[in-house]
């Protein structure tokens, strides 16, 4: 399965990429929101994992653009903020699954399983 990961933090990006690789997925990585949108259009991933706060375009706004470009797959949002603050944000309802930072192997596995179950 092809997974798109977008995070401006190189460490998080590398770690999630490695974890996804170990889980047997093909990974494409972007380092900001607009790059993620371009990559999503080109690579057609099965699942996208987006950081909430990234330069140029936030994860929520990037997801909105991806949907406008026809991406219909599930979205996992990486955040370090509490759920109640997140739910207040405009566009938060479009997100199926939230994954709290710091990312753990089990958390990621569980989020991916839930992402696949929603489709």
């Amino acid at each position, binding site marked *: 399965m092809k997974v798109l990961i977008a995070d401006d933090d190189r460490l998080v990006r590398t770690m999630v990429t490695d974890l996804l690789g170990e889980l047997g997925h093909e990974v494409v990585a972007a380092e900001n929101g607009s790059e993620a949108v371009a990559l999503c259009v080109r690579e057609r991933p099965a699942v996208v994992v987006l950081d909430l*706060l990234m330069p140029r375009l936030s994860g929520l706004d990037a997801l909105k653009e991806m949907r406008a470009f026809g991406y219909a797959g599930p979205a996992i949002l990486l955040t370090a903020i509490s759920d109640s603050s997140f739910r*207040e944000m405009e566009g938060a309802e479009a997100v199926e699954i939230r994954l709290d930072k710091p990312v753990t192997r089990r958390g990621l596995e569980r989020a991916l399983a839930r992402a696949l179950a929603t489709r």
Partner: protein
Amino acid sequence: MKLSRTLLVLVTAASALPVVLLGWMLAEARGGLDAAAAIAVLSCLLLAASGAALVARSVTRPIAECVRGALEIARGRFGRQVQVSARNEIGDLAYTFNHMSRELASYDAENRRLIQALEQGYLDTIRSLASAIDAKDPYTRGHSHRVAALAVELGRELNLSPEALQSLEYGGVLHDIGKIGMPDAILSKATPLTDAERDLAKEHPRIGSEIVAGVAFLAAAAPAIRNHHERWDGAGYPDGLAGEAIPLVARIVNAADTWDACTSNRPYQKAYPVEEALAIVARLRGTQLDPAVHDALVAVVRKRQERKRARREAERLEREARDAAAAPAGDAETEPAPAPTAAGTRSG
């Protein structure tokens, strides 16, 4: 919200504890509580809980509002203001936050203005560069600008991204920049070129792309310049690319260049009327021109004709209205209709 729960529990516990303790001691001493004492303890508990709820709300509500505003700014929506009227430290936080947000919004607007001015400056510079090539040959005056304008229109028709439209504009304006090194005798020669002359002339796309290669903001235009003489069937130059292998921007500039060559006077030919030019490019569809780009060209040409017709019609109405207004009062009264129509068309 976690903070509000914590506050609720803490404040309730702190304020209710003495009453509970007192009630317990009373029950010990008297061997049970009478109804009045029980009601007093319970109502104290209730009061403590509602007071705690009030405290929790007054602290967490403004904080939540600040968090909301901070998240909006973090996702790039500068200028967002938070509504907090408390006259305490949280109020100060909100006040400074709003000030910071306004400042960020104004820096952002200033940056956008500067970028726009910078890009306009770039464009003016390359336009004057292109005019230098056009000036070498009276027949091609304005050619670069017309090709750029048409290429951008074609790009819009094909729903290309703003970045692609920008490279079409730059690429269109500069597509013949390589001719700057060509002898004038070749450029404006009315008779067929010799083989040696043709070989030299065929070098201009390569030379042009090399000229812009070193300029960062023109890098995206380089493919349009280098490959604007490639043909869909692969018989073009300099790289002999075919079909989708030719960069799309180059295919578009090629079509715009061909169209402008057909519809303007050249040393070797007079300008063709639109319908004849359309017949010519229709024959090139699939051989020289990308079929999709050709179809976009036809659509754009038809739209241009439509706009021209509408403009002529508007001018005619305006002229009629002017004539009617200038005519003696008696005539104007018998025919008052055209004036508002003309005004309406023009503003529309």
